[in-house]
């Protein structure tokens, strides 16, 4: 994945500041609660939602099981339709391929459709290093790019910004990149959208190279699909002479017909719309219409390793709708940046440690960035059991064990910093398999209860810093039960 996030602190430290930022909390609370309610309404309209969800899960599972076959079929279909397919094992290779293709055109700027895959590999930074300027054309991505910021949400990457902040960014930065913001710009949504439209229009008309991702790739026809709301994607996909699409290998569906399921579940889950405004589909190249050259860069970057994991592979079903972010109570309070990845929220917490591995501090902490409340699983349109994968990855962090990294079977060592916890868990396991020991501990706690401190030192501060400790009772239940034979002995 991108170097953009290297050196991120662990999740709890990164979240520490965000939790205290009242503006950020307010922005996120308002945005996530609004979209959450809309999504629930849009989903409730569909009488066969449960069946669609199950169908989506099955199609994806089937495809992943036969991914090798479908990838080769896709390559053949795209090639037959006039496109060129490139294979990229990792971010560096993908970036090299794309930079090379842009250079071949002789151009030094490109327009971009909103794309998670190109953010994952840090494509904009890689192109910048080669002297190529990439312009984001999705409104929210534009806000992030102009603000020299990082995306904090999959669907609404500038969710952490309010209207006033966006107005300031436009006024300050637009002139650096092209057409300046209109004089006297206010923070009304219509004016902000118009400023972006004017700024972007000249880029669409000038650009000779477009870069996109894709929501889906159809193996049988070689068709790519981009689902969007603003029409900027349609511009980038049709106006330039060369189109380069960077797509994760898990984005395949076998047949055209399979799209039926996802074109219903994706918009309702993401933007809470029955149907998104623009669905662009293209199959290779067509004479006199659209780009003359089409290149598809198929990106692995940790996906094959993820596929090797029996429990974790379900994360590859993800269609990037971000419904899980919008219902997550942790995301709502910590914000997207704390996840240290272009994939924030619950899905990011299971995707990043699999795509990148659990070696770094941030990746080892992500599986714990959840109270396991299960709201994410409930709304996921492809039924990814995110809590199950989180717990599985916690196990990988504390116990280590077999995994696949860069295509090789390895045995991971337990992560550092869990020694005290491991000892405590072992001690608790011993006590809990020796009821006498448990009882001894309970009695000791009860007898010393008058001298218990009201707050705890060291790691215990994590509790008592914000919450009172429960009072220890005079006797544990089991002593009462034994003393009174379950209340029958008369004593109370």
């Amino acid at each position, binding site marked *: 994945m991108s170097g953009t996030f290297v050196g991120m602190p662990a999740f709890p430290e990164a979240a520490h500041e965000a939790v205290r930022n009242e503006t950020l909390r307010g922005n996120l609370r308002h945005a996530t609660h609004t979209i959450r309610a809309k999504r629930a309404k849009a989903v409730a309209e569909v009488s066969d939602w449960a069946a669609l969800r199950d169908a989506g899960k099955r199609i994806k599972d089937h495809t992943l099981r036969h991914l090798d076959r479908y990838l080769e079929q896709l390559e053949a279909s795209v090639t037959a339709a006039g496109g060129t397919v490139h294979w990229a094992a990792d971010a560096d290779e993908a970036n090299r391929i794309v930079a090379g293709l842009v250079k071949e055109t002789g151009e030094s700027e490109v327009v971009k459709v909103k794309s998670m895959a190109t953010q994952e590999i840090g494509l904009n930074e890689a192109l910048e290093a080669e002297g190529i300027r990439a312009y984001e054309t999705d409104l929210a991505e534009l806000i992030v790019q102009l603000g020299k910021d990082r995306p904090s949400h999959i669907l609404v990457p500038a969710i952490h910004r309010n209207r006033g902040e966006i107005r300031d960014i436009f006024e300050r930065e637009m002139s650096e990149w092209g057409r300046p913001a209109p004089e006297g710009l206010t923070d009304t949504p219509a004016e902000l959208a118009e400023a972006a439209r004017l700024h972007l229009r000249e880029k669409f008309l000038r650009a000779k190279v477009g870069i996109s991702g894709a929501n889906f790739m159809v193996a049988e026809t070689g068709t790519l699909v981009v689902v969007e709301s603003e029409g900027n994607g349609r511009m980038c996909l049709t106006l330039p002479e060369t189109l380069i699409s960077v797509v994760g290998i898990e984005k395949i569906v076998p047949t055209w017909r399979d799209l039926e399921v996802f074109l219903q579940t994706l918009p309702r889950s993401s933007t809470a719309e029955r149907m998104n405004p623009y669905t662009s589909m293209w199959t290779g190249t067509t004479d006199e219409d659209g780009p003359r050259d089409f290149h598809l860069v198929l990106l692995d970057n940790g996906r094959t390793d993820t596929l090797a994991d029996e429990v974790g592979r379900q994360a590859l079903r993800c269609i990037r709708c971000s419904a899980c972010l919008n219902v997550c109570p942790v995301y709502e309070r910590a914000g997207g940046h704390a996840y240290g990845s272009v994939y924030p929220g619950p899905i990011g917490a299971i995707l990043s440690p699999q795509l990148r591995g659990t070696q770094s501090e941030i990746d080892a902490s992500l599986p714990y960035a959840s109270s396991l*409340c299960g*709201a994410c699983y409930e709304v996921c349109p492809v039924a990814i059991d995110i809590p199950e994968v989180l717990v599985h990855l916690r196990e990988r962090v504390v116990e280590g064990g077999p995994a696949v990294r860069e295509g090789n079977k390895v045995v991971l060592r337990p992560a550092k910093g869990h020694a005290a916890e491991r000892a405590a868990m072992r001690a*608790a396991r011993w006590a*809990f398999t020796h009821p006498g020991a448990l009882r001894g501990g309970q009695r000791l706690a009860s007898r010393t209860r008058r001298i218990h401190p009201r707050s705890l030192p060291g790691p215990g501060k994590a509790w008592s810093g*914000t919450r009172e400790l*429960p009072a220890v009772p005079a006797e544990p*239940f089991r002593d009462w039960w034994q003393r009174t034979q379950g209340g029958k002995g008369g004593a109370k």
Partner: protein
Amino acid sequence: MRVALFLTCVNDTLYPDTGRAVVKLLTRLGVEVDFPMAQTCCGQAHYNTGYRHEAEPLARHFSDVFGEYEAIVTPSGSCGAMVRELYPRMGERARAEGRGDTLAATLAPVVPKTYELTEFLVDVLGVTDVGAYYPHKVTYHPTCHGLRGLGLGDRPRRLLQAVEGLELVELPGADECCGFGGTFALKNSDVSAAMGADKVRNAESTGAEVLCAADNSCLMHIGGTMARLETDMRPVHIAEILASTDKEPAV
């Protein structure tokens, strides 16, 4: 019917009143309750923190202790979900690790006969009016593992609505997690505390005296937050409300 009370380690150690309330309630409803003294812990904290292999002996111990009973009742949504949802998964994982069917077979008998308390009352005993009296204004927080894990649905609310004298008021954002999450409360204490404070503010906005839930672990976190924020509300386990009668009222 011979029913075993699986009280849970947290309730046994810290909330014996909840245990006494369950015994009182079930006895009143004509159920013969036993408390197997060898019971300890279901292993949920181990499992959910990533120590599945440490949780296995606890699950086997649970099965040894409770295997012979007709039904196992627990006043905890999350411990109930541990047995019902995660014990089968532990068996599957052991099989996937090439350790055969032994663990799955050992755990299988306890899975279908473990009930969370409100489930047992409504589904097995078929009662919603348990003859309780509790003259207080109450709001109900459906804890996550009860709500989404076990699918308790409106069972707890139906039981509370049938309590004489009890005024049940809706909790805004009821379905949102309180922020406890077991070791999450310690590992991500800032976010956990922020979630808890929001839950308490929502509860306060109802004007209720009591926040009721069917899981004392969540109530330990919510109650601890209430006490720190010096609110006038108090947390009460649903068993204590349902056990309360006009002759022997709970406070």
